């Protein structure tokens, strides 16, 4: 790439912000279903961890699957891809 010169604009403020710790990405109150894991059925195949679109699932060889519900959107992809049907979607409202 040719050289780029960064020169301040003559007019106007730029739409830039400095990233800081915030609530971005947290699910809040809008999830309608949550995935619940039966670790007894889990074979540690890692499919749920690989396919989770928001990267909130971890699979440990000893303990099995853990899900970070702060960020889980309840999309159900993990339940769909689990070959052992060890994950089921449960209504948030009970």
């Amino acid at each position: 790439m040719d050289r780029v010169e960064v020169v301040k604009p003559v007019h106007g403020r730029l739409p830039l912000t400095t990233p800081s710790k915030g609530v971005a990405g947290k699910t809040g109150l809008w999830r309608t279903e949550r995935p619940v894991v039966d670790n007894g059925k889990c074979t540690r195949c890692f499919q749920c961890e690989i396919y989770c679109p928001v990267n909130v699932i971890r699979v440990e060889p000893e303990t099995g699957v853990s899900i970070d519900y702060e960020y889980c959107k309840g999309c159900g992809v993990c339940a769909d891809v689990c070959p052992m049907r060890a994950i089921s979607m449960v209504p948030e409202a009970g």
Partner: protein
Amino acid sequence: MVRKALTGNHAISYAVKLVKPEVIAAYPITPQTSIVEKLSEMVESGELDSTMIRVESEHSALAACYGAALAGARAFTATSSQGLLYMHEVVHWVSRARIPMVMAVVSRTINAPWNIWPDHSDFMDQRDAGWIMAYAMDNQEALDLTIQAFKISEDPEVYLPVMVGIEGFILGHTTMPVEIPDEELVREWLGPRRQPYVVDGSSPIGVGGLTMPEETEDIFHGIQESMESAKRVIERVDREYGRMFGRSYGGLTQCYRCEDADYLAVSMGAWSGDLMEAVNKLREEGYRVGVLRLRFYRPFPREDLLEHAGRSKGVVVFDRAVSFGAWGPIFADLVASLAERPEKLPALSNIVAGIAGVNITSEDFEKLVKRFIESVEKGEKPVYFEWFRKR
């Protein structure tokens, strides 16, 4: 300097080749497709060293260019009609980020019903998006404007994206001799890319994050101020281009026989040539009339119109688009400009024509302009708004 017979679309492709943007992203849509087809051929043959991103939609095409431009690349895309409407959301993102880039708009009527012929409605739909909006009259100007657009866009007094319009098929697919400047000279003239910030990972910055109302207002106000500055920059860039490459157009408007004119016809785009022909004939018949052609629609050439139209007895505006329920967009802006000096208002008339690609000839223009002048001369009030239809 090489001379080639080129369509308007290929004239734009050659202009882009001379500029050599690092990134070109596009989705095919009639009548734009041959611009990026030609660029794709150039990249494939090694004639042009750019990255060509084939995307799944126009929304993605502009988003890809936006991302590349944020990272410091010169970027280019081209589109038409529904494609431009589909990318409309991203059109605003680019201008509000104050990121320079260039896009060609090969005008085509908006559907429905399905129609591939040109009018200015797709272009005019982008009016309030904060882009500099230029429109060429012939293939040579399409090439020259595209090169100039990069220079204008990257000026720190501007820092706004630029769209360059031509009518599909009328210019887009019609061949004319076009002079192609020397590649090295173009690059030398453009110099290194300038932009107000770069997202290159060297420092953590967020672009387009949430800002408070007052800060957002400041950002938008900056765009308005830069639009005013762009008027001077456009004229300066055109002068510099003239010195370097021998062709200069004058700035925001082109005045054709309007210096001594009593009456003025205002237009934009390729049909201005037919209007100029009509004016030549009317001059032979003794009608002192000229053409003021808009080369830029945003920033709106308010001062030029005040100067020329303000001393005319009558101004007739030809619009190739309509704001349904009101008038043609150029007319609405022109009247608003003239109202700055209400004591010197000329007789005014707006003719919307050529919608959906209907062919308007030089004879049609001659008839309409003559009718307008005669009604003013007789002391009658001319028709304020008319949709001229061919059947």
